[in-house]
């Protein structure tokens, strides 16, 4: 698979990645981080466009830099707009399929398949120069999957796609991940990423800040106790009752009918809460944890 060991990369004085050690497992991993955190650097290192300044990086046991043998197992969707505007979509994918080492006889059928998968069959024979942003994005994905690579690396693939196309692409990526491929998606659109996967890697200021499952990470962020908001017509009584629990840090009445509870041990809370409700006969209209999503986790980790 992909593993990095104390990898650093800098450009002159500007640091791209600083001493990163990690490994990517098969499945869908989301690569997150603010702009300038080093995500593009990481992706370029993995796809063999850059060499690490120090440390070592191996993909399937080999170094990816300038390693054509490995490229046939890699598919890369860059975030740049630069595509050949004079070629048609089909020609573009065909050219890249050939470069990836597909046998001549296979190329046409595989190209057609890839184009079909991304939904560009209708427009495949028009020049890329006339494509909209979303269409260019899709044709880039087509060239990345045409040779059925084991590793798919996508840099901001959802950018510019309308909601329908985004769902389709997300489904495609999940499908690939389910087949055992290693899919790495770098994206800023957190609510989309959240629906695709729970494995995240968070980079911040060139360093690896977090790696793992979202929920596990959330559980470990001690500094920010879990918040749970409960809507109930008997808010005040419920609040009083909850305050008796030893693991409840604070109870706040948000509005007339919403209680907000803070706790460091959400498991204990979720285990005890149903009993309290059933015993006390409280009517609960709704309850959820507003900061149990990726965006909150991201903010907590970045802002410290």
């Amino acid at each position, binding site marked *: 698979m992909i593993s990095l060991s104390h990898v650093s990369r800098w450009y002159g004085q500007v640091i791209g990645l600083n001493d990163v050690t990690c490994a990517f497992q098969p499945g869908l991993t989301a690569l997150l981080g603010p702009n300038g955190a080093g995500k593009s650097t990481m992706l370029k290192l993995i796809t063999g466009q850059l060499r690490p300044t120090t440390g070592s990086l191996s993909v399937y046991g080999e170094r990816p830099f300038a390693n054509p043998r490995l490229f046939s197992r890699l598919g890369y969707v860059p975030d740049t707009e630069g595509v050949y505007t004079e070629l048609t979509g089909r020609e573009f994918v065909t050219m890249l399929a050939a470069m990836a080492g597909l046998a001549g006889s296979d190329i046409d059928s595989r190209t057609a398949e890839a184009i079909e998968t991304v939904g560009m069959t209708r427009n495949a024979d028009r020049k890329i120069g006339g494509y909209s942003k979303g269409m260019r994005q899709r044709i880039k994905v087509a060239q990345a999957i045409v040779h059925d690579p084991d590793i798919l690396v996508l840099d901001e693939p959802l950018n510019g796609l*309308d*909601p*329908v196309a*985004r769902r389709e692409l997300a489904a495609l990526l999940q499908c690939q991940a389910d087949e055992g491929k290693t899919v790495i998606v770098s994206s*800023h659109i957190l609510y989309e990423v959240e629906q695709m996967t729970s494995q995240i890697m968070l980079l911040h200021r060139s360093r690896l800040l977090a790696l793992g499952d979202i929920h596990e990470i959330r559980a470990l962020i001690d500094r920010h106790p879990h918040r749970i908001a409960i809507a109930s017509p008997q808010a005040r009584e419920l609040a009083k009752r909850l305050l008796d629990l030893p693991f409840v840090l604070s109870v706040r009445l948000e509005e007339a009918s919403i209680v907000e509870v803070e706790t460091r041990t959400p498991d204990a809370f979720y285990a005890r809460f*149903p009993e309290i409700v059933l015993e006390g006969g409280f009517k609960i209209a709704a309850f*959820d944890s507003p900061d149990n999503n990726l965006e909150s986790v991201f903010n907590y980790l970045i802002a410290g």
Partner: protein
Amino acid sequence: MSIATLTDLTIAYGPKVAVSNLSVEIPEGCVGLLGPNGAGKTTLIKTLMGFLTPASGSANVLGMDVRREGLRLRQRIGLMPEQDCHIPGMNAVSFVAYAGELSGMPRSQAMRRAHEVLEYCGLGEARYRNVETYSTGMKQRIKLAQALVHGPKLMFLDEPTNGLDPAGREDMLTLVRDISHGKGVNVVVSSHLLPDVERTCDNVIVMREGHLAREGDIATLKQGNEAHVDVELYAASDAFLESAAKRGAALVSRLGSRYTLRIAEGVDCGRLLFESAGESGAQVRGFRPSLRTLEDIFMEAMQ
């Protein structure tokens, strides 16, 4: 009160019809313009700004006819384009001041106003650097500033959060919300990121293949089916579903450990869910009445 009225508007590029027979009223405040790629949103915006002539029909924006009063119209409208754009070789201040001058402001006023608007958009010291060295977030802010400099009454924002990281997105959405509520500026946001639209806009217009697919105010459109409940468990559990079914809850859909159940009216959801959970050993982590998101509304409009 509406800021624009479109009647039977048809816009074509030669043989291709981008928008056909569109009749809609764009209300005041913040409006989201949604639609898949190719639905005609950008074409519509350019027509409403007066630099594309419609093939037939009429459009009246801010009381002016787009066919005849294009120039006057653009005096009161600002556009934040989707693509990267800048005037070569200028820094933020000169660029925004220049944009002001192009709108007819005298140089001294344009300079003063440029600083004011750049301050509002959150560009501090960076405004003295060349625009070509800017990050995506800064470029987006400049595009917003150049659209605001001449004090427009209506702004078109085309993908304002494109390429921004979560922090930048937060800032931009706050700006958009601030500008469109209480400052007397009407805003039309065209975006693919539906949660962003949900956050900033009060109304939506959904387009599809050049036609109007849906329109209305978001709060009304979002009212979902009151009998549905979204439940999130710690881990997916079929035993839970069985227990719930015994108590009269039917499964509508599921995604991982999230279920949508239909519960009969008058039944206490909390009680039902906690009892089912207790019986089956599952742990309920949250539940709430099903709210349709803008995404659901959009997907339905695409059917």
